[in-house]
Every structure is written in structure tokens, then in C-alpha cells.
């Protein structure tokens, strides 16, 4: 049984098509990242899973139960984006309130709440009113409330939003730790570097459609591109290398560096041979590996423009919210 499964999931808000047939599957013990531009439909997907908004068509299953079923939510922890905790609570009392809603017994709450708050680093302020918390503290509290009842699945909508770099690292470590304990984590994030560091699989959503999906390795797999640099004063034989069947491109940012792409099934060997035959000295050779960011950029560029660019095409502007 998959932890999350959607089949051809569609959602329209009035005339806005937020999801246009999304099918994905998240297995137990994974950290799964959902990427996409603003307005791509990431939050909408999560809200459907939790029953916060209704789906228009298709299927969504959470731990085997139809999304929106009340009881299955007992096994899910959720950190929404743009959350607003009631300011009259203290961190502790809020956790106590939510813990009771999850059905955690009182004795267990008394033990787990300080532990969870300690994990996210705000235990020292747990008896202060939330209205006195900083943005990052509220975010940490949000993470703590999503995991204190020991849920099978933890859904985090932009978990490191507003958190300082040290804190982000702590949260990454925390997620890795949770994963090791067998929890499944599903997260939305715009911080691709982070996603690359912790996620097992990622999916890229573009205007309500899933455009790429796979493990990090699969997505960032290099296509065989090398950056070469010659001794100062020497000229790169662009035409000759191109004639060998290797596309060449001068890198605009670093003068004297050229990017050579290998055609399928070939190695860099013939190029090196040609250069040495011509008496040229290679002082820089690096095999290029794509970052997730590169993958993301090429993906969204290749696909339809993001919502924020709709205006340019003369379409009506799309506002956030309701």
C-alpha cells in the first residue's frame, strides 16, 4: 500500500484549473519533494489529500483511505503554509490542544510536548504566548505540532520558510532522523538546494501538471558535459572539435572556458587527442553534473510559462488566495 496515491487528480476553483490530472505515488519511508513555481498547484494537492478542499475529479488515497476521511488524519501530521496559530495560546498549550484533538492521552502529551519542542529548538519559550514568537519560532512550532503525535505521514508545506540557515540545517537533520525511524515525509519547497540534500524522490508540477518525476539521481544525471580550459593565450579549436561531432559552446561567464557535450556513446577521448595533437595544453577539465536547480530551470523553461508570466501572453491575471 502506498502512503500517498493520486490518480488523474483534477481540481478547479471556479475557472482556475489548479490541478489538471496529477498521478503520483509516495511509498513508505520516503522523503518526497514536490516542486513547482508559485501557483503550480502544490498546496492544492496537499489540501486535497487532507480533505481541506474537495477534489473535482480523479482519485486521491492517503494511507489507503480516500482523502478527506476523518480517521486517517489521526496518522498524519500537517504543517500548512501561511499558518496563523491562535495568539492566545502558548506554544505548550497549543500543542496540548492539538494533541487532544489527535487523541493523544494526557500523560503522553505531558511527555511528548516538551520533547517535540526541544527537537525544534523552542522548548525554552514554550510557556510564552505565541503572539510573542518570531516568524521562525512559529514555523518551528508548526513543525513540532506536525510530528508530536508520532504520525506515519508528515506533510510539510514549505517547512523551512522563515527559518534561519542554522535552523534549516537542524530541520533537515530532523527530517533525516524521522525518515530513519520509518516516517514518510511529503514536502513542498522552493529551496531546491535543500530538496536535493534530503529528498529521495521529487516531482515537478507545472501549471497543474506533473512534468517530471523520479529520484534525485535520475533527474540530475549528467548528460556527459565537460568544461575545458586551455593555457592562457591559446585558442580553442572550436570548429575542429565541432567537426568531430562534439557540440561546443563558449561559457560566457568564464573567459577561456568551453563546454563540450558528448554525443551518445562517445567519450571525451577524441577531443583530448585532437587538442594534444595541436600542441594545446589543457589546464582545466571538469565533468559537469547538473544540480536540481538546473533540472528545475530547464524543466520549467521548456514547459509552459509559469503563472506569473501569464500576463505577458495576454491571458487574464491570476491572483492568489480566493
Amino acid at each position, binding site marked *: 500500500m502506498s502512503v500517498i496515491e493520486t490518480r488523474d487528480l483534477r481540481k478547479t476553483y471556479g475557472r482556475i484549473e489548479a490541478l489538471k490530472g496529477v498521478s503520483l505515488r509516495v511509498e513508505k519511508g520516503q522523503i518526497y519533494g514536490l516542486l513547482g513555481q508559485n501557483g503550480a498547484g502544490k498546496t492544492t494537492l496537499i489540501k486535497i489529500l487532507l480533505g481541506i478542499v474537495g477534489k473535482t475529479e480523479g482519485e486521491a488515497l492517503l494511507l489507503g483511505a480516500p482523502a478527506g476521511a476523518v480517521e486517517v488524519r489521526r496518522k498524519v501530521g500537517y504543517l500548512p503554509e501561511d499558518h496563523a*496559530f*491562535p495568539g492566545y495560546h502558548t506554544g505548550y498549550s497549543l500543542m496540548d490542544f492539538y494533541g*487532544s484533538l489527535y487523541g493523544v492521552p494526557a500523560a503522553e502529551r505531558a511527555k511528548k510536548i516538551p520533547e517535540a519542542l526541544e527537537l525544534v529548538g523552542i522548548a525554552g519559550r514554550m510557556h510564552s504566548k505565541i503572539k510573542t514568537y518570531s516568524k521562525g519560532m512559529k514555523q518551528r512550532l508548526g513543525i513540532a505540532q506536525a510530528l508530536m503525535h508520532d504520525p506515519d505521514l508528515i506533510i510539510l508545506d514549505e517547512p523551512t520558510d522563515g527559518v534561519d540557515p542554522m535552523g534549516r540545517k537542524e530541520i533537515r537533520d530532523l527530517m533525516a532522523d524521522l525518515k530513519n525511524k520509518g516516517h514518510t515525509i511529503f514536502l513542498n519547497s522552493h529551496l531546491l538546494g535543500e530538496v536535493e540534500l534530503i529528498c529521495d524522490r521529487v516531482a515537478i508540477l507545472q501549471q497543474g501538471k506533473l512534468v517530471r518525476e523520479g529520484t534525485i539521481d535520475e533527474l540530475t544525471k549528467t548528460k556527459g558535459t565537460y568544461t575545458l580550459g586551455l593555457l592562457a593565450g591559446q585558442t580553442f579549436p572550436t570548429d575542429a572539435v565541432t567537426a568531430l561531432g562534439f557540440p561546443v559552446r563558449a561559457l560566457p561567464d568564464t573567459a577561456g572556458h568551453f563546454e563540450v557535450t558528448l554525443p551518445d556513446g562517445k567519450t571525451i577521448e577524441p577531443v583530448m587527442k585532437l587538442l594534444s595533437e595541436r600542441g594545446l595544453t589543457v589546464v582545466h577539465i571538469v565533468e559537469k553534473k547538473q544540480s536540481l536547480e538546473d533540472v528545475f530551470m530547464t524543466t520549467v523553461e521548456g514547459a509552459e510559462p509559469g503563472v506569473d508570466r501569464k500576463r505577458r501572453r495576454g491571458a487574464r491575471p491570476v491572483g492568489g488566495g480566493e
Partner: protein
Amino acid sequence: MQQFFAILKDSFREAVDGFVIYVMLALAAVLIVLVASVSFTPDSPDVALPKVLPKFAILYPDQGKGTFPTAVPVPLKYQAANAQLGANGAATFILEVDRDKERDGALALPLDGFRYAVYTWTKPSGPKVENPFANRNRGPNVSTELGIVAPPAASADDLKGVTDEQMVAFLKFQFAAFVGVHESDVTISRRAGVAEPAYAFDVQLNNATTARGWTQSVSVLFGAVPPFKSRPLGASVAFIQDQLVNGIGAAVTLMLSVVITAFFIPNMLRKGSLDLLISKPIGRVQLLVYKYIGGLTFIFLLSAFTIGGVWAVTGVRSGLWNPTFLLVVPVLTFTFAILYAVSTVIAVYTRSAIAAILITLAFMFFLYLLGQAKTVFDANRIVNEFDLPEWAYTLVDTLNNILPRYKDLDKLTTSFITDGTVPVGDARIRGIFVETPSWAGAFGVSLAFIALMLGLASWRLVKRDG
């Protein structure tokens, strides 16, 4: 259950976070202290008895078991002589009964008024008297009868047959009904040597000065303001409990509570808050209903504090412990339940606390006006004092039938506070003028209304996205 209490606790936290709750608690405390400052001092028999004895003209037939008095009170003069105050508030005096010379000349009465009064008291109730002015064409449910019964006919022999024991039993009942003493605390014997139709009796009333119908002088602010009024104890306590607390106090409490609780649901529905709650394993309807009950708990606790406090201090200060006053707590909570149901619907549809407050207060005012109109119209059906078009009656009746009986709830509390404070003879008189509404009508229609409001609110909440 755990979820229910969690939400109650959450509502409670929310309520005590603002300052209005402290204003309300302070007001309640002021009210309790003010009531506690009222001192009661029993009047001497010379002052108290002349105030209560004229009520003896009111006759409840069927040995006092008849709820409605006879139509023609017999004009008699009841006077006390040689009044003395003994230990434990016991009063001893000679009760003299004679014809009321100023009044009975005008009426064709049997010669012996007192014997006739006792005779009437012993006989079963006659038929109710028809109201000659009743407007029969308006309102099928309106009775054209008055709350008084016809007196029996009596022959000279009938009157002669009245025994001394019957006279004593009658007077015992009158003392119990209008002074409020227990019949077992009354000792009466007829004095010989008085020529009929005048009568004299030796009377001893034990525990008389603490009885509900005995007048006591009232001073406020712990005696700083000298005694300014002398009234029957029960009437004073009824004034405090009904007019002051159940009237003004309750209205203020309801309005302030509407204001405080109006924020609960819009706050819950705010963007960023609702998602956190509905992602928990709890249904939306459940969430809303629990939250609604949370609002009611708030006023329940507040009124329990205020009413309980006033009840305790009036009990201590006056010696009159009236348990029916405590019923104001559930009735007030129920009244608030009606208002809060309106507030909830408005909150769910507009998500604005201000809209919820304004519309709820307007609705409260409207129900109040409707209740007043209903009372005036019903009275006019009997006395036909002014001419009203048919549709006006239909409109007021229809609205009253379908809307919560706000006024009825108030009438109910007033009637049970009265029953619990004033002597039974006085309470029955009040019952003639103020109709006690049915509990089923007052609660049934209101409950249906609450269910409808919550249903509408739930429907909207379930339908909406997030």
C-alpha cells in the same frame, strides 16, 4: 469526548485572553456586593399587620385549593389590637373583624360578611367569570374568561351553619397565604363576648417577622443609606432577583456575551487557522457544534457565578433562600443559545465578527419588540382598548409562532422567581394578570430555531473549500 473538552478549553482560553471578560466579572462582582449591601429590618407588628391584613379580603375557594379568587371580595375590615412581639419573631395580637362600613353600604350583601367569606372559602370553586369586553373575533386561542370565579349563593341558614372551627381554619389559611407563615406556626382561638357580625380572635404567629409577607424596611450600602422603604420581604427579594438581576443584569450579560463570543468562530475561520484545525481528525460539523457549545459554556459559567453569588448573598442577608432563582442560570444560557446560533450563522457566512455582533444584537432587539407587541396585542384581545387591523394580529402571531420565544423565557423566569419569593396568595394574584407561557412552547420552538441555524451554518462550512 476528549476533543470536545479540548475545544471547550480552547474557547475558554480565547475568552480569558481579552479584557471584556474581566469587565464582565468586575460588573458581576459589583452587582453581588451591591446586593450584599442591602439590609433588611423587620417592622413591628403595628406597622406590618395593617399592610397585610387588607389582603384577607381575597378569597380562594375550595379551602384555599382553588387557584382563582372569587369575583366579589367581601368588604370587611381586619384589624390588629394589642400587638406584641415575643421571642423568635413571634407576634401575638387580637384580630378584630367587622363590616367595612364605608364600602358595604353600596353593595347588596348578606348581613354577615365574615360568615359569608368563610362559607365561600369552604365551598368548591364556581365557574369562571366571562369578560364582558372580550373581543371574540380575534384569535381563536384567546380565552374570553377572566381569572376569577363566581361566588356561591348562600342562604341565611348556610351562614348560620359556619362553625368556629371553620373560621379558625379559614384564618389560618389566610395567614399562611398572605403573611407566608406555616399553618403550624399559627395558633388562633375565637374570643367570646363580641356581638356578631363583629368577631375577635386571639392570634399567635410564630416566626412571623421572618415570613415572606411580613414587611421589612430596606436600606442599602450596608446601612449608609437609611431605611427608605418598607415592603414585604418576599417582594423585596423578588425585586432584586427578578428586576435587577434577571432583568437588567441578564440583558447586560447577554449583550456583552454576544460581543465576546462573536469573535470565536470568525477567528477559527480565518485563513491560516482553519486549515490547522480541519486537518486534525475531527469533522467540520463536530468542530462547529463544539465551538458553539464552547460559547455557551462561557455564559453558563459567567451566569452561574453571578446568579450563584446573588443567590447566596440575598439568602444570607434576608434569610430567604429561594432555590427557584438558580433556574435563571439554565434559562439564561438557553436564551443565549438562541442568540449565539444567529451569531454562528452570520459568522460562518460573513466570517466577520462585527457583522455577527450587529446582526445578533439587532435580532435580540427585534425579538424583544416582538415579545412586547405580542403581550400588548394579547391584552388588547381581552380589553379591546384600541382598534388594530386584522393583519397586524396575524403578523405578530405568525412571527411569534415561528421565532424563538425570547419573551416567554423571561416570563417563565419571572413567574418561578415570584413563586419562590412571595407568599402563595400574592403569587396567585400575579398569575391572574400575567399568563405563564408553556415550557414546551418556549423551549420547543426555540430549539427548532437553533437546530435550523446550526444546520445552515454546518452546511456552509462543509461545502466550502478550506
